[in-house]
């Protein structure tokens, strides 16, 4: 059941499909009354284009370091019992699970806030790139514009 004084803070990359059930179990705590989770799945469309699947590439060493930093930030900011995030790399089909975040806490505000913080920061900061395949044309790397960044060079 874990030590209430040391919240779990874990970030991982997975190069194959993974089960959520044991990850969720790992966040159960007798003192925690709330659990929030987020899952990102591969949609069958993006920006109006039909998606056939994709490939996630990571700069693994830095992704793991930045991911660890993010979950530790979440633990420091919010009154959580644990935060865990796993991000897939490699080939994923439509409907595949791309990323999972779970957070447990005594109260629901902290669980929701930590979960939301982690997924937002992972999307903004962790060096993972999406190579999207379309059923109506050639694939492309996705490099979304950050706030205030100039338009992507053509």
């Amino acid at each position, binding site marked *: 059941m874990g030590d209430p004084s040391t919240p779990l803070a874990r970030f991982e990359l997975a190069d194959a499909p993974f089960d959520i059930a044991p990850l969720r179990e790992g966040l159960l705590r007798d003192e925690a009354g709330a659990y929030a989770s987020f899952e990102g799945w591969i949609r069958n469309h993006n920006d109006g284009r039909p998606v056939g699947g994709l490939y996630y590439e990571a700069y693994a060493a830095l992704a793991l370091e*930045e991911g660890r930093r993010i979950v530790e930030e979440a633990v420091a900011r919010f009154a959580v019992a644990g935060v865990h995030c796993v991000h897939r790399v490699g080939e994923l089909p439509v409907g595949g699970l791309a990323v999972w975040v779970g957070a447990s806490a005594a109260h629901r505000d902290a669980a929701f806030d930590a979960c939301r913080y982690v997924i937002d920061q992972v999307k903004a900061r962790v060096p993972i790139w999406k190579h999207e395949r379309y059923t109506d044309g050639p694939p492309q790397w996705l490099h979304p514009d950050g706030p205030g960044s100039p338009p992507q060079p053509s």
Partner: protein
Amino acid sequence: MARVALLYFASLRDAAGCEREEVETAAADLAALYAEVAARHGLRWPRERLRVAMDGSFAAWSDPPREGSEVVFIPPVSGG
């Protein structure tokens, strides 16, 4: 002069045509190193849209390239 390994990811790898190369550079900082590399490979990403990492941690563009280090220019990420 410093000898560094450059790693390329995603569209930068496609543009550079390789995923890793070793270079000797006289660049005073990582910004100057990117300018060299971008000119050589015809990379069209302005530096302002990239971040840079050295030896597995984010670095400042004003950091000098360390001898024997691994340097990565990080295009906008799209995980999640």
